[in-house]
């Protein structure tokens, strides 16, 4: 497989870390531990989680519907719409980087349309989905939610130029006879995350909520607003669509993927509510006395183990990496159910 060469691994790892362009293999004791093969084993990834193979340049570009395309490096995803007046690009992940224009060139030349990117729509402000925006220069019209602009203004990252066009709750983008509906329905993954609906293409793009075929990344995908993120799939399903662009991993999603994901989160919530009732805090507080944080830590670790064990078992072979990240997501959901919803709160007499 092409993905076993060092260059590919570096490109993929760039998704997660600001590694120098030329990383050295002398990474210290921890990397030595990796080299020595003492990392834990995990269950194999179900084949249904994987997408099409990437080409020699490290990308795959595919048609979503008609003139709407998606590009992936097997970890990140962007999309683009070819129109008679130029190309509208949706997100610009730095791990795909220059392959974005290569993918567009390939599709444009095959169809005899313009390969000129005239607009970039930002799904949300995070650098891992936008850090290649500056590659498209100053003459592109950038579009994003009001909060996206505010957050980018405070972050001052030259690779993510501010959007020129902003909106508060909804915006209809019309370019070259095409229509895209952008909408903000409240906070979820970030305060500014946008629903991008393609009514003429039976497609919804919503980034960093559902990662088709996979469990969420660490800590419930690092979602800032946990209740908002739990509610987002219902909002997404209220739109008509067949194809889903989730911004991550190697394939498109379906409504069935969204339903499986919703059930996975619902199962975690059930487990967490049981843990809040069934795990007895007494032994932890008795053991640690004055060290309140030691008691809290061990008690909550026991609650997380109680909540996540049946969920991991149920989803192994269904969602990739259920045994890698479910506990960390269960912890974040437990805290939200305790702190936001007040479940399990006992009032001192």
């Amino acid at each position, binding site marked *: 497989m092409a993905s076993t060469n060092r260059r590919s691994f570096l490109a993929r790892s760039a998704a997660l870390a600001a590694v120098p362009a030329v990383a050295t293999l002398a990474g210290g004791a921890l990397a030595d531990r990796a080299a020595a093969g003492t990392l834990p084993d995990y269950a*194999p990834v179900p084949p249904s989680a994987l997408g099409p193979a990437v080409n020699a340049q490290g990308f795959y570009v595919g048609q979503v519907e008609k003139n709407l395309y998606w590009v992936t490096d097997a970890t990140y995803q962007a999309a683009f719409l070819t129109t008679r007046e130029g190309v509208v690009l949706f997100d610009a992940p730095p791990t795909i980087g220059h392959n974005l224009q290569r993918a567009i060139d390939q599709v444009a030349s095959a169809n005899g349309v313009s390969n000129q990117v005239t607009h970039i729509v930002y799904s949300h402000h995070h650098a891992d989905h936008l850090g290649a925006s500056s590659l498209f220069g100053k003459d592109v019209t950038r579009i994003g939610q009001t909060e996206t602009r505010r957050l980018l203004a405070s972050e001052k990252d030259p690779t993510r130029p501010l959007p020129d066009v902003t909106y508060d709750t909804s915006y209809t983008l019309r370019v070259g006879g095409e229509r895209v509906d952008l909408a903000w329905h409240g906070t979820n993954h970030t305060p500014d995350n946008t629903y991008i609906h393609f009514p003429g293409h039976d497609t919804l793009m919503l980034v960093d909520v559902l990662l088709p075929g996979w469990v969420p990344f*660490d800590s419930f995908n690092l979602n800032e607003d946990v209740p908002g993120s739990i509610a987002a799939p219902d909002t997404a399903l209220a739109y008509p669509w067949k194809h889903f662009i989730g911004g991550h991993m190697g394939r498109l999603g379906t409504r069935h993927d969204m339903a499986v994901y919703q059930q996975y989160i619902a199962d975690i919530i059930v487990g967490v509510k049981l843990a809040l009732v069934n*795990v007895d805090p007494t032994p*932890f507080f008795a053991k640690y006395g004055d060290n309140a944080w030691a008691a809290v830590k061990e008690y909550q670790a026991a609650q997380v183990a109680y909540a996540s064990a049946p969920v991991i078992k149920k989803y192994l072979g269904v969602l990739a*990496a259920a045994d890698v990240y479910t506990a960390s997501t269960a912890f974040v959901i437990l805290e939200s159910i305790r702190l936001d919803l*007040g479940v399990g*709160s006992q*009032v001192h007499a």
Partner: protein
Amino acid sequence: MTSPADSAPAVPDYAPIPRTALGPALNDQGYFVGRVERNLYYVTDGVYQAAFLTTADGVIMFDAPPSIGGNLQRAVDEIAAANGVSNTVTHLVYSHHHADHGSASSLFGGDVIRIGHEDTRRLLQRDGDPSRPLPEVTFTDRYTLAVGGERVELAWHGPNHTPDNIYIHFPDHDTLMFIDVVNAGWVPIYNLNLSEDVIGYMGAPAIALDYPWTHLISGHLGRLATRDDVAVHQQYIADIEASSREALASVDPVPYYVAGGANFWAGVKGHLDAVTERAAAPVIAKYTGVLAAADIEAFTMTTTFQIMQSLRLDRGPSGPVHP
């Protein structure tokens, strides 16, 4: 019947906590009430804190943690009786919407005037918890609460721990109340004290220090905080940030992704665990014996992980651009 706790292997031992982290002893009912300055008092159960101000027209309560619960009124009664003032709680100020600081609010009934940020009201509406009645009085940026000749300044300076967490300044009592950012004498718990906005959380102590005050009511653990406590906390966070930058640049990810193969999340987890361990280890070593619970590695590790991710995702760049 049997919980995992009953059958769990013995839980680990941790380093003794520094004496400086502890507050005063609790009474038989499980609370301590102490004067902050003049007619401003704080109540603690050793883990949570609330505050109250006695005035000519009644008592203003600041937060109502359920773990203190019925002891809030007992503490008020004790002080009111000793000073011959009213023990009726007339106002309740919410620092933020979280249940662990607000769920004894309903004990004070329907006639109390509740005050909170507009987002506190919005979030409490969302949460639908009868133990935390909605604030009737809300504000967007600032609100001056004047009751019985006393003045309290409430201010919202952006999201940090939660979107709605406010600064409560007592200009005539040399005191700031600001919850769930600095834990006096202790490290933050998991994930930067479970904070939603990492950049906002990291910037908050500097905003707190811009106010004039000698006493800080931080909402947690047994004692009041000082400006020095805030400075130590700031240094702890700054050390984690510096260490995270170093570790991101120096841990080679390749072996982890090789080991993970098609299981990309396994590769990512192996790599990021290594970065987090490398970044957190010197911080844990430096603060053990300085901040209580610094040796509970999961706390400093998860806080480091959140800061490291925010450096990538918020501040950028997240990594190199594919050539």
